[in-house]
């Protein structure tokens, strides 16, 4: 497309808002999406030539509504009349554009959908990625992704668009998208890494819509602070570099500053939540020297607020760093009986690390090898085997 970047960025931002308006007025995911696509195409060809309309958003809503009307005209006269009326409604009393984006996110993160479907639909409908792009990002054939997305839309239709999982579900899906990109950010998977940018962009949009929500700010901060280390986390050959060994000059200072300011501000004026705590911990991890005592305290709070075995595991590491490796190892014993993590490679990798610190290198070696067998990640397996020596 020959449109200058400004128009493209504008359209990307407006697309979910316009789809949100159409869905709110008319329902019918598939039909509304088609109409919005046509309106976007019209804008991308007309605006660069004729200049931006006074209100680009209203322009798109009007054009998309008209297309929608055209499409259904032949199908149902009754429905056409309703739509025509709706399309002429003034925009004054409507929620803001950012709220429409958020409402569309709520819909895409419908509780009737599996996480994989929520993620796919969000990227397609809110992120504006093509089905082929979503498929490529998740390394699945386009046909599989097309079915996954259309099934998701059908399911929402059947389940009704009114029930939704709320902000928690939206944040979780954005977090999943971010992680999918972050863990893949090397070598042949670079196009998957674009998912982190997409997750950050969408989380920023939610943050603009809900600036006072501490957990939204916390999640955005967590993403920024994690993404700041992206360039330093892998070697040129794709090998994973642990936090302690990363070249700190390659960390992105601007992202660290922005993330730290965000989480500091959020924690000072809103109720504590798991994303804020994780962001605060991430902020401490990129400071030098690492304040392990502070990290330990935050994990204690996180364990109380959102207990799960992965948090217990990280808490054990912080305890080991402040009270010695044996104190950390003692905490791991409870996890051996927890079916959620007993066979997870991370438990055994952490145990191996702490045994190494305690000087028990033989036991450490065995646990590194056990962890290497349990992971399904090639770079993690390589790292763990190297640690085993």
């Amino acid at each position: 497309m020959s449109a200058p970047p400004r128009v493209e960025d504008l359209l990307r931002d407006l697309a979910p808002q316009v789809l949100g308006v159409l869905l709110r007025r008319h329902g019918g995911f598939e039909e509304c999406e088609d109409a919005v696509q046509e309106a976007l195409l019209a804008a991308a060809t007309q605006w660069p030539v004729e200049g931006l309309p006074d209100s680009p958003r209203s322009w798109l809503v009007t054009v998309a509504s008209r297309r929608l009307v055209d499409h259904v005209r032949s199908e149902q006269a009754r429905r056409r009349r309703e739509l025509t009326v709706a399309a002429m409604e003034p925009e004054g009393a409507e929620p803001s554009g950012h709220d429409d984006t958020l409402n569309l996110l709520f819909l895409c993160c419908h509780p009737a959908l599996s996480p994989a479907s929520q993620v796919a639909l969000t990227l397609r409908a809110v992120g504006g990625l093509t089905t082929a792009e979503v498929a490529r990002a998740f390394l699945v054939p386009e046909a599989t992704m097309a079915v996954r997305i259309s099934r998701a839309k059908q399911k929402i239709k059947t389940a009704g668009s009114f029930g939704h999982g709320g902000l928690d579900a939206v944040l979780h899906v954005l977090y999943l998208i971010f992680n999918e990109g972050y863990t893949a950010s090397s070598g042949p998977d670079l196009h998957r890494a674009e998912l982190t940018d997409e997750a950050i962009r969408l989380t920023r949009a939610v943050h603009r819509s809900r600036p006072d929500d501490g957990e939204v700010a916390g999640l955005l901060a967590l993403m920024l602070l994690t993404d700041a280390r992206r360039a330093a986390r892998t070697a040129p050959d794709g090998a994973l570099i642990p936090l302690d060994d990363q070249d700190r000059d390659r960390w992105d200072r601007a992202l660290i500053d922005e993330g730290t300011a965000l989480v500091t501000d959020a924690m000072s004026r809103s109720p504590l939540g798991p994303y804020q705590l994780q962001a605060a911990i991430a902020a401490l991890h990129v400071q030098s020297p690492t304040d392990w005592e502070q990290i330990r305290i935050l994990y204690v709070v996180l364990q109380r607020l959102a207990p799960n075995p992965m948090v217990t595991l990280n808490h054990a590491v912080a305890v080991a760093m402040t009270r010695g490796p044996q104190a950390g190892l003692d905490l791991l014993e409870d996890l051996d009986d927890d079916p959620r993590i007993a066979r997870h490679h991370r438990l055994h990798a952490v145990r191996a690390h702490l045994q190494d610190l305690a000087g028990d290198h033989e036991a450490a070696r065995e646990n590194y090898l056990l962890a290497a067998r349990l992971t399904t990640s090639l770079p993690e397996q390589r790292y763990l085997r190297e640690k085993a020596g």
Partner: protein
Amino acid sequence: MKFLLNLYVEPTEEAALAGELLCGQVFADPSITAAVRSHDGVAAVTEGPYTPGSDQPTGCYLIDCDSRERALEVAALILAGRDGGVEVRPLMDSAGMEM
């Protein structure tokens, strides 16, 4: 997460796997299978499956789903109450988290 499902039951219709199925294949009869083994640099062919026995896979599905739990659910869907089994084999991924 991706999983290979090795079927030890007659392959079924794939509708239940839509949106998660990446590809599926039905295997030809084990009697026309051959195994090629190398010993001391010399390759030798034997007729029949690599691991002999009456329990031979009939086909396989490659699926992409949320979790191991979901993959086990899909396996149960494929069985649909029939006698037989499905082996759920996780695949390695090139993504990873630094420690």
